[in-house]
């Protein structure tokens, strides 16, 4: 398994394609890992001439699980430590859901290292109290169900090995680490901060996503921003919306990162 050690932790990393540019993919929480990008966006982005970097966040996929350290600031520090270990300095970031919050905060913390941002149904931006209350409530409900209904064991008893393992990982993260507390302590990225973003941003949000307001805040306040709304989609735009995302992502990368312009209809 390809891995790097960063901040004393073993991170599972996959790289493909040759660059520059370097495009780094940051996945979502709990049930997610790098495979959601590995099977969808990474190969087509590598094909147009980018070095793609995918890694499993702390406690996710095949990266080590620690008891603590799941807040966004630790995730940003982990990201740059992984990039340092791989020898990448200036990169484009593609983040989905919580991975979008990580990417956005990374660009604000180190503007010199982030050349562009692609935020796919990203959490993070907010302009009022309770900005992530629904999100936290849903995660807390999942945590209770996973523990009290012993969902992982039940799925395994029914012969559903794959879903059982996904549930077991989510159970371990939500019930046996500080992840929920760390997320509850997270501050939103406020409009005043969004106005300071110096890199170009492509925001892609599902029309019926519960975090679609974040997309509207990004469009209103980020100086150099394009917003693409995916008609009929909820928060879960991957893998179902892969072809549509590629139709906006590949031309955007060609313009802002200097990758090759994809042939018409090349996106699957």
């Amino acid at each position, binding site marked *: *398994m390809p891995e790097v050690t960063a901040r004393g932790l073993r991170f599972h990393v996959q790289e493909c394609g040759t660059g520059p540019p370097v495009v780094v993919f940051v996945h979502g929480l709990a049930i997610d890992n790098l*495979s959601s990008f*590995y099977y969808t966006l990474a190969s087509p982005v590598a094909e147009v001439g980018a070095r793609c970097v995918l890694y499993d966040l702390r406690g996710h996929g*095949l990266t080590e699980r620690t008891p603590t350290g799941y807040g966004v600031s630790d995730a940003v520090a982990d990201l740059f430590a992984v990039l340092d270990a791989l020898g990448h300095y200036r990169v484009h970031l593609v983040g989905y859901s919580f991975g979008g919050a990580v990417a956005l905060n990374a660009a604000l913390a180190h503007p010199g290292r982030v050349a562009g941002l692609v935020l796919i149904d990203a959490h993070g931006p907010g302009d009022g109290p309770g900005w992530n209350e629904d999100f936290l409530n849903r995660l807390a409900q999942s945590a209770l169900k996973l523990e009290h209904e012993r969902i992982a064991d039940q799925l395994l008893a029914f012969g559903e090995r*794959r879903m059982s*393992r996904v549930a077991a990982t989510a159970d371990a993260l939500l019930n046996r680490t500080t992840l929920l507390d760390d997320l509850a302590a997270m501050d939103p990225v406020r409009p005043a901060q969004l106005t300071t973003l110096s890199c170009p941003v492509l925001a892609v949000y599902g029309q019926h996503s519960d975090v679609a307001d974040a997309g509207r805040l990004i469009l209103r306040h980020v100086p150099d921003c394009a917003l693409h709304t995916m008609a009929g989609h909820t928060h879960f735009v991957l893998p179902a919306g892969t072809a549509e995302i590629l139709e906006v992502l590949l031309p955007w990368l060609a313009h802002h990162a200097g990758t090759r312009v994809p042939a018409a209809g090349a996106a699957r």
Partner: protein
Amino acid sequence: MSDIPRMNDIRSEVVRMLIDVVGEDFLLDVEIGPGTTFGDDLGLESIEFVALVDRLRAHYGDRADFPGFIAGLDLDQLVNLTVGDVVDHIAAQERAHA
């Protein structure tokens, strides 16, 4: 023309790598043939399939082009991918580079 003994060797190698990824205990209960799917039959998590592809690349080298092989499949094909599909791909690449 397919080389049956070589295909059987490749299948044994792929099964050995599968055991590395998912553990022997689980696979003891499963009869693995060419039609066995990684998803429904073996219950492989998508991240475990990534780990299997790593082992395949390490064993057969980059000329087997697994990233290209995977990129050429749509999601339905990926979900229904069989042990036989992977064995056929490896054998075809070996013949092409022989």
